[in-house]
């Protein structure tokens, strides 16, 4: 057992010190009926490293990776190029194998990183303050709705139809047994109607309006009028961002009046990983900071007056407040936040802006090409790096056929909204800096063939 340092001689010496005849003597409290006397049947015995590598390698090879061919899948998770130094640095044992920094004297590395992360996120979202990360974008959004209830003492959350349907589903699940009332609308292809309808619906019972930008169809919109409507009614505007690279090019939610901004931070520094681990971003205005969920790192000084960092405002958290906590969350995505922060540092503002501009330009180029295919219509007018096209037939089988040709073409609205036949021909296509002209050619050719 390569991970178990005790030798048989160690074990018997230690039993001697304890005064126990054998290891079973230490399990006396376990009822006899529940004691297992042998390894559990139906499971394999220990494997060598090489055997594990072979077994897992074989499973890995059964998946088509995002780098195996043309790739245009987005809808809440994006393939960007992550510099090699990011993965190198997050694998340093001092980051990888450290604990939550409850002992700040020997965790200043993690703490300073979290402080810098919070600062980067706040600026990126144009908000005052961000927390040290949450599980992912969807759970962050739910936490934001709860926070809005705490702040406004109202219970109706009105959710845009352009919010990622998985996010809305999570919100519905987690409010099933709370007092919150979630109002949703069926999605269609016209986001401006959606925003106008939301603005019109805000009322004195509304705790918050939740809107995504760019939304699930790729649309980007000016949220300022909606923010004004919310504030006029005493409600909060919650903005969800699932593609944070967009913020290098388009106005940030904070600039458009958002009160709480949540996001999925995977795009910066983190791989696709089949959906996790990802990185929930959460930011708000200074005045609401004591209602925020999640870990916060703050600046302070040590006994010698040196600047240092600590986890702070922990009286909001479950390990202190127990049933009165703002959230039951007690883990963040520390390592993903580190990767985000390193990648953001490598980009810097100028790099982020260039990366965002590149994503947009490439998306425009592909949209123009696809729009010229007979029967294909680009539905999204204004977008960042993702847009929706309407095909002349149901999109979901088309996506499968394109995959057989080696092209991962995007996410069909049929997969996201299986019960909404009006959307069935829609396909959401994402384009990042990793797509080449050859990828565009392959996509176009394959789509031509499948539709022919």
């Amino acid at each position, binding site marked *: 057992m390569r991970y178990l340092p005790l030798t048989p001689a160690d074990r018997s010496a230690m039993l001697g010190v304890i005064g126990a005849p054998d290891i079973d003597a230490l399990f006396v409290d376990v009822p006899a009926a529940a004691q297992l006397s042998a390894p559990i049947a139906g499971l394999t015995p220990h494997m060598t490293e090489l055997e594990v590598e072979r077994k897992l390698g074989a499973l890995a090879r059964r998946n088509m990776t995002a780098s195996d061919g043309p790739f245009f899948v987005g809808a809440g998770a994006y393939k960007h190029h992550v510099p090699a130094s990011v993965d190198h640095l997050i694998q340093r*044992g001092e980051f*990888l194998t450290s604990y939550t920094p409850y002992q700040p004297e020997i965790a200043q590395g993690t703490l300073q990183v979290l402080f810098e992360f919070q600062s980067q996120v706040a600026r990126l979202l144009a908000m005052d303050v961000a927390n040290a990360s949450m599980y992912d974008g969807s759970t962050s959004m739910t936490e934001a709705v709860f926070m809005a209830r705490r702040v406004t003492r109202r219970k109706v959350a009105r959710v845009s139809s352009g919010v990622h349907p998985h996010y809305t589903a999570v919100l519905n699940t987690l409010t099933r047994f709370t007092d919150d009332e979630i109002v949703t609308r069926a999605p269609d292809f016209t986001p401006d109607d959606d925003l106008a309808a939301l603005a019109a619906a805000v009322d004195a019972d509304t705790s918050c309006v939740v809107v995504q930008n760019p939304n699930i169809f790729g649309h980007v919109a000016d949220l300022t009028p909606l923010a004004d409507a919310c504030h006029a009614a005493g409600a909060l505007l919650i903005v969800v961002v699932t593609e944070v690279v967009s913020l290098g090019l388009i106005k940030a939610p904070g600039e458009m009046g958002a009160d709480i901004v949540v996001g999925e931070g995977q795009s910066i520094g983190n791989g696709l990983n089949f959906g996790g681990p990802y990185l929930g971003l959460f930011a708000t205005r200074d005045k609401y900071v004591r209602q925020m969920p999640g870990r916060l790192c703050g600046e302070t000084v040590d006994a010698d007056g040196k600047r240092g960092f600590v986890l702070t405002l922990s009286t909001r958290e479950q390990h202190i407040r127990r049933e009165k906590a703002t959230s039951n969350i007690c883990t963040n995505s520390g390592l993903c936040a580190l990767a985000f922060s390193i990648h953001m540092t490598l980009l*810097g503002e100028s790099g982020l802006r260039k990366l965002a501009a590149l994503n947009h330009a490439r998306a425009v180029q592909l949209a123009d090409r696809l729009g010229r295919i007979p029967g294909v219509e680009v539905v999204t007018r204004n977008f960042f790096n993702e847009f929706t096209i309407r095909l002349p037939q149901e999109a979901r089988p088309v996506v499968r056929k394109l995959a057989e040709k080696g092209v991962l073409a995007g996410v069909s609205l049929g997969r996201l909204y299986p019960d909404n036949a009006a959307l069935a021909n829609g396909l959401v296509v994402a384009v990042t800096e990793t797509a080449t002209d050859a990828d565009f050619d392959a996509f176009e050719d394959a789509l031509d063939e499948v539709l022919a």
Partner: protein
Amino acid sequence: LEEPLLFEKGAIDRWGVDLPDVPAVATRLGGLERTAEIGLPGLSEPDTVRHYTRLSRQNYAIDMGIFPLGSCTMKHNPRLNEKMARLPGFADIHPLQPIDTVQGALALIDQLAHWLKTLTGMPEVAMSPKAGAHGELCGMLAIRAAHDAAGSDRRVVLVPESAHGTNPATAAFCGYTVEDIPADARGRVDLAALKARLANGSDVAAVMITNPNTCGLFEPDMIEICAAVHAAGGYVYCDGANFNAIVGRVRPGDLGIDAMHINLHKTFSTPHGGGGPGSGPVVFSAALAPFAPLPFVRKTGDHYELVEEEQAHVSTDHDHSFGRMVAFHGQMGMFVRALSYILSHGNDGLRQVAEDAVLNANYVLASLKDLFSAPFGDAGPCMHEALFSDAFLEGTGLTTLDLAKALIDEGFHPMTMYFPLVVHGAMLIEPTETESKASLDQLIGALRSVANRMLTEDANIFKGAPYLAPRRRLDETAAARKPVLSWQG
């Protein structure tokens, strides 16, 4: 050399990535260009590597020494697991790719699910919860959904005082009122008191219990407790934080529990990473299985299917699912690491894990209990962690906190302090099975040395510790009073 903040070192016109030129196109942003300065400093790659390397060196980590944190199970993180998680076939696949293109990923989830179900003796597992607390929520949502489906209106959840803080927080979140379960003198659930409460238990939806408990002790009456709760019409939720103590030796399902989360980073060694990410799959009894969340993996012949919302109504085995807990399918990266760890140990090795974890904890208990106050030290063996109190420091003016900080100067991370709450000045030491006897002897030696000096030397010396860490004691009160939470430069 002190490492400055990124914001003091970088500048918005510096960067460490090269990007190709941007093609000239007519933008389609609807006039929403971001024009104001964002304020994100950049660094060249060399300076970036140096910044984070220097920062990392301010941290303590498992790779440097023992983390004797009770209840946290900080064990060795094998590098094989990191290597496996980075295979492109796992790391570079999108959660919404067509199902036919991710059969290996679904197979991996299915195999891990098989291990978790078999090791716990439970028929169903929900893989998607993102962390232990999220798993708790998953379990309690299932319990609430089951009661609701049965038309039951129970609103009380019983939780022992010694429970993790997440337990009451989670119960409250599901709309339950929390009541304490009393403990007996040996640190266990007072079975008689519990039975008395259950006698009028028609309002009791569930009992949440940690076993082995947070005092590091196995609940010997667990089977009886479960039977009593079931008889009263409730469910038993087990906090699985301490599964490491019994994995391979005891199946929680055999005790009668209905739901338990498993912290993959604890028992199955996914790295803690300074605070996450975690992963908290939840196993369910047959009674709760129909209420498990979506999505889940179903195997038909050689083909794996991912059942998401839309198909739920055609499923027969999950037709009461309470819904989706996360955007995609859970912490795949953690699943790969956990399965790599599990396969490396096998059913024989996992059993040895529990035995060595318990042996190490009892060795620490036996080696310290003459000097440290061990509240339950004479009540028999502990499980995977040993509980002490600061009663032995009475009269010195020193506390658990001072001892912890002094231990930092000896080169060790402190133990868990002031938890569980049921013991005054608690010190909870969990060595885990990946510590050698030599490592434990060093820790024991340091603890004895510090304790002896605290009993004999000037207390003020210890009030000032640590002296040798990157920072002295930090002013947490000032930090909270006037929070500075982001760079204001």
